[in-house]
């Protein structure tokens, strides 16, 4: 078991000397926001100090000091996580990448961008577009950092066509717990060259090393795109349509589902009722939102026609065409606001980010709703119908916190068990942190979990990097 030391004034002084007083805070001066992420239900923990690093060399110096003194180090991006990943539950310092927010350069011949990890996803996406390129991963939280996205292997809305963050990481600079600086990966698209340490770093949640620079793959921006809204009677019919849509050679960029309840909340909250609630005289109970891309309008029309035929067969009330740029902006802004809406309307909140096979989504949702009702917890959901990744929020405005936690645990135990039975994954893109560790162990089994722990030990023998997370116990 790891033994950690407290930050002494002397060590604090050494750390402060690395980044300078402007970018260092300790004790009382540490801002409250560094003690939690966006899911405070898992508990808050105030770091003993916060270093706002700007360079790889600073990170290396800090790691040397911390490993010499056995001080835990938790890396933090924008703090938008949902599983307590950036919360220093075992004390020590927080190393924030928020000031490493420069996009360094584009290589237009090899279609890659070199960037610092603290760049916000929305800034990278917009900047790439201005270069005529697209960064395909599109997680809902646009103000997360790309470093955070890589650390959690974030997926997002476009994963059904383009894959997830992992598929776009070509190379990175990593600082190991001992302070050694290491480069992983190359600016090429293939490798058959030994174990992929690069891919081990992706999704490692700051437990193996600290990412200080990234080389990300970009693609040419699609020439034309269109989004289509398919309203359905209920969520079961909506989800049942997804396999047919996926089979139709449409190569959709995204297939999202949303329940009416959350669409209504979003409309009330944003004051912008983008999604029609009554379609052809019938109340819509759920929606599928599909985005198609193509090289010409003719190609798109061909795809839309095929989608239209499928929509009729699977019982969609209609197919609504989101064609103009301003309407696309409105529709996707409404979709992106869902989590904010839930957070605003809910006092106590917990979430699951499971992935199940696409043809099991409906069954899983029904199961969850039934179990939630049994536990007296309110459940709201939306997510990526195309890849089976569901965001399920457990909410309560009237329960006591302890009682809520107890009920949610009972609910989640059931749901994760069901998820495992369906051959699903504990987390699609929000990752494990310290919140979902037990469910991960149950899901992957003791052998796999043990191997993860062993790998952690190879990288970080003293367990000072983000202790207590993923597969590490203190």
């Amino acid at each position, binding site marked *: 078991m790891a033994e950690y030391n407290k930050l002494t004034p002397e060590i604090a002084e050494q750390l402060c000397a690395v980044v300078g007083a402007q970018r260092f805070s300790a004790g009382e001066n540490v801002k409250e926001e560094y003690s939690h992420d966006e899911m405070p239900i898992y508990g808050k923990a105030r770091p003993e100090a916060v270093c706002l690093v700007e360079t790889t060399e600073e990170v290396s110096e800090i790691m040397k000091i911390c490993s010499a003194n056995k001080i835990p180090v938790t890396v933090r991006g924008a703090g938008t996580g949902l599983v307590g990943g950036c919360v220093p539950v075992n004390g020590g310092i927080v190393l924030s990448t928020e000031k490493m927010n420069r996009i360094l350069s584009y290589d237009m011949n090899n279609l890659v961008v070199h960037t610092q990890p603290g760049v916000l996803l929305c800034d990278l996406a917009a900047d790439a577009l201005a270069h005529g390129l697209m960064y395909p991963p599109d997680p809902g939280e646009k103000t997360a950092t790309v470093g955070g996205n890589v650390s959690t292997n974030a997926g997002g809305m476009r994963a059904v066509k383009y894959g997830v963050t992992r598929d776009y990481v070509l190379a990175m600079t990593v600082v190991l717990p001992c302070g050694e600086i290491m480069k992983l990966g190359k600016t090429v698209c293939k490798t058959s060259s030994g174990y992929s340490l690069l891919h081990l770093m992706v999704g490692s949640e700051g437990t193996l090393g600290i990412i200080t620079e990234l080389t990300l793959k970009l693609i040419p921006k699609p020439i034309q795109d269109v989004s289509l809204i398919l309203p359905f009677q209920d969520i079961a019919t909506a989800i049942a349509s997804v396999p047919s849509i996926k089979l139709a050679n449409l190569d959709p960029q995204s297939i999202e589902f949303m329940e009416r309840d959350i669409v209504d909340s979003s409309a009330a909250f944003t004051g912008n009722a983008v999604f029609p609630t009554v379609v052809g005289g019938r109340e819509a109970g759920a929606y599928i939102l599909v985005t198609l891309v193509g090289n010409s309008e003719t190609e798109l029309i061909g795809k839309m026609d095929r989608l239209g035929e499928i929509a009729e067969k699977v019982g969609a009330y*209609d197919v609504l065409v989101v064609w103009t740029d*301003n309407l696309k902006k409105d529709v996707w802004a409404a979709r992106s606001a869902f989590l904010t809406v839930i957070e605003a309307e809910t006092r106590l909140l917990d979430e699951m980010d499971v992935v199940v096979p696409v043809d099991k989504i409906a069954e899983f949702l029904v199961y969850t709703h039934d179990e939630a009702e049994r536990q007296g917890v309110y459940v709201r959901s939306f997510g990526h119908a195309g890849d089976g990744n569901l965001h399920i929020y457990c909410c309560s405005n009237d329960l006591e916190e302890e009682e809520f936690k107890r009920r949610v645990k009972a609910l989640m135990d059931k749901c994760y068990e069901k998820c495992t039975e369906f051959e699903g994954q504990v987390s699609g893109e929000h990752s494990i942190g310290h919140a979902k560790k037990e469910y991960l162990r149950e899901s992957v089994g003791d052998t796999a979990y043990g191997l993860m722990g062993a790998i952690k030990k190879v990288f970080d023998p003293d367990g000072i990097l983000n202790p207590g997370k993923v597969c590490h116990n203190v």
Partner: protein
Amino acid sequence: MLNILVCVKQVPDVNLVKIDPVTGSLIRAGVPSILNPLDANALEAAVRTRERYGGSVTCITMGPDMAAEALRECLAAGADKAVLLSDRAFANADTLATSYVIVSAARLLGDFDLIFCGKESLDGATGQMGAQLAERFGASLVSSMSLLRSIDFEKKTVIAERELERGIETCEARYPCLFTVEKTNYRPRIPNLRSWRASRFAEITRFTSATIPGLDPAQIGDPGSPTKVPRTYPPEVGEAGMMIDEGSVDRNVEKLLDLLGDVL
């Protein structure tokens, strides 16, 4: 059968227009052209009126060839016919000359009972077109119309609500009647695939100055426009205010609140 006309305009999305910091001139490149947002509300009001009472909705615009795209958007959202008035001779028209061309062309298409317009355009924003079109059509004017309540086909009158400065007026107006439409109750619909698809292939009727008989050259384009724009210039800017930069948001806000101490 109701004969309904909707007058629309394609405008640059001025919210995206930038100013060249060196020359002070407008950077128009890359700025998308869109259907004037308030015209979409006018169209929605027109289409709902047709859905309730029957009839036909024609949309008309004056502009370059690419303005056909704005008309297709109208067709997708429920218009039956689209008419584009396009000619170099129409260029540089003010509201007086524009209303003259639109009404001259509309007369060739029949007698319209109801005419719907947006309240104003995003770019010119004079808000004069409705009044001047009403004048040239010889129509009654119901501006800031927020709800078309009912139509009396016997009396040939319309009852509608208007959003005025201090309240809602209900008024009765005789045909032909021109409305400028408020967005309150007329959120534009999202077109369905069938009507959107049809709009991509629909025929658009085109008129030039030569195909509108009897058009007076002195009343169109620049010669027909009594208002002129002799010059434009970037807005004068004052001296920069005091920028607070204390190194962190926290300290900036602290400083700001200190500075504001004497105001409140």
